[in-house]
């Protein structure tokens, strides 16, 4: 896949420069190397801070979701690579308004190691942190080993719901508990149609035949659960919805937000074709869709494919989902 870039090793830094130049009212670069993005207004005094972090190449994830009602700061690694411990510590500092900081990010080895370390470092300075790991990808491990699952698009619900809770003034244990409740009620699964290319590597992350797709593939090309011939939208959607419902059954009367998310190249036209099917399935079940999200919420640069996420809502979560939020990529 062809890319519009200059030096591949400056990809992330130039991207962040452009991001902050375009949206100075939302984002501010921080840290000695500019690899932390904080809310333009800085930390909110007395509010629990929300910090995330991870590799680049997933916009709006992670950086994009820094904003009111969402995150306070984000540590940014190279494309598909973990940020460093001190970038994470810088992000925690940038988010700390004196009420502690929730670390909410995807379950990837390097990120976990580094965030744990950063948390210990700031702990010695007296900043309390809690962690909520996103592990929503049902294709990445069986339900019995749920803690091994990868974090994918479902993290957006984590950001939104915990972000709204923090904005409402809840304390750190409460915000952490809400984040965990939200993530516990969130399940995702994806399908990849083409790979993408990490700029510093210069060749596709994996190979997929001209007429093949892989259901359950991770956002960095991690192996999925079913590789086969490209199927119709309804067939693909049906496989994905079945997998989600098996993992988290929905019943008549349940209220649920659904996200049909493009991994990058797949256009919204196709997402709507899939949404049409997904909405039909939930209607059959008698479940009610609340605030469906259709678009590019968590991507892998120019990868073709998509993911479907269900987030089952109780009254509290539904209110938090509808609460206002504002960043350059999403406004409620």
């Amino acid at each position, binding site marked *: 896949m062809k890319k519009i870039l200059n030096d591949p090793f400056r990809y992330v830094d130039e991207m962040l420069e452009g991001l902050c130049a375009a949206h100075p009212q939302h984002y501010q670069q921080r840290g*000695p190397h500019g690899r932390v993005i904080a809310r333009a207004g800085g930390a909110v005094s007395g509010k629990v801070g929300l910090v995330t972090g991870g590799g680049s190449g997933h916009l709006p994830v992670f950086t994009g979701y820094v904003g009111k009602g969402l995150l306070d700061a984000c540590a940014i*690694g*190279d494309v598909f*690579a*973990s*940020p*460093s*411990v*001190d*970038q994470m510590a810088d992000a925690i500092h940038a988010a700390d308004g004196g009420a502690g900081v929730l670390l909410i990010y995807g379950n990837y*080895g*390097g990120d976990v*190691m*580094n965030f*744990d*370390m950063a948390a*210990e*470092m700031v702990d*010695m300075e007296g900043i309390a942190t809690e962690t909520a790991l996103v592990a929503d990808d049902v294709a990445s491990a069986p339900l019995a080993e749920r803690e091994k699952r990868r974090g994918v698009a479902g993290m957006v619900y984590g950001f939104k719901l915990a972000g709204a809770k923090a904005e409402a003034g809840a304390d750190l244990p409460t915000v952490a508990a809400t984040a965990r409740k939200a993530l516990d009620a969130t399940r995702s699964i994806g399908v990849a149609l083409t790979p993408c290319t990490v700029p510093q590597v210069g060749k596709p992350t994996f190979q997929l035949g001209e007429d093949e797709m892989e259901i359950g593939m991770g956002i960095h090309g991690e192996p999925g659960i079913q590789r086969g011939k490209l199927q119709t939208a309804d067939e693909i959607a049906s496989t994905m919805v079945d997998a989600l419902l098996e993992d988290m059954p929905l019943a008549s009367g349940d209220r649920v937000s659904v996200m049909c998310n493009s991994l990058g190249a797949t256009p919204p036209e196709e997402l709507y074709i899939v949404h049409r099917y997904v909405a039909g399935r939930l209607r059959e079940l008698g479940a009610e869709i609340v605030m469906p999200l259709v678009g590019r919420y968590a991507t892998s640069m120019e990868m073709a494919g998509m993911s479907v996420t269900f987030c089952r809502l109780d009254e509290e979560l539904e209110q938090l989902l509808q609460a206002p939020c504002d960043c350059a990529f999403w406004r409620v």
Partner: protein
Amino acid sequence: MAESLTTEVLRDAIRRLSAQAESCADELSAIDGALGDGDLGVTLVRGMRSVAEQADDLPPDLGAALLQCAKALVSLSGSTYGTLLATGVMSAAKAVRGRTEVGWRETADLLGGALEAMQRRGKAELGDKTVLDAVAATVEALRLAETPDAMLPAARQAVREAIAEFRDRAARQGRARMFGENSVGKDDPGMVAWLRLLEGLA
């Protein structure tokens, strides 16, 4: 080796380790290239440079000095090795907080504590063919050493043996794990890096 560990001794060690990192960088990156992403040499150089940069400013309190080292270690890289080393150093920092001197017999326990912290951090087991196995061999050798001067030679010997022993096993952690059976016959980059650091200390 000195009879006890002080900030002065630490400062001297940092200078040696830093020089050693520069001279082994290419070798280590090449080994990491064969079983990973080839950044281990760069990681070590960057990390040690940033530790060395502030060696002159280290306080006499060993705990504070080591904490400062740990922070410098993670200042640049987002790599596993950097995080693990920093984790070990931070564990030692906590253990000696407020002290200006640590006797040579204590160092084995300090490193043992660091090893445990690194294990917790990386969620790896001994035997997974990682730097942990080299550190474990080092701890064992330090425990058995009868004089300060016997410590380093024994540790180096033990790590060389560990590397040889693990060579024909498959890696079970990190990027090397993806190579599966193809990792058999190849040395773990993290273990080799640990050996080179020990060699640099002499």
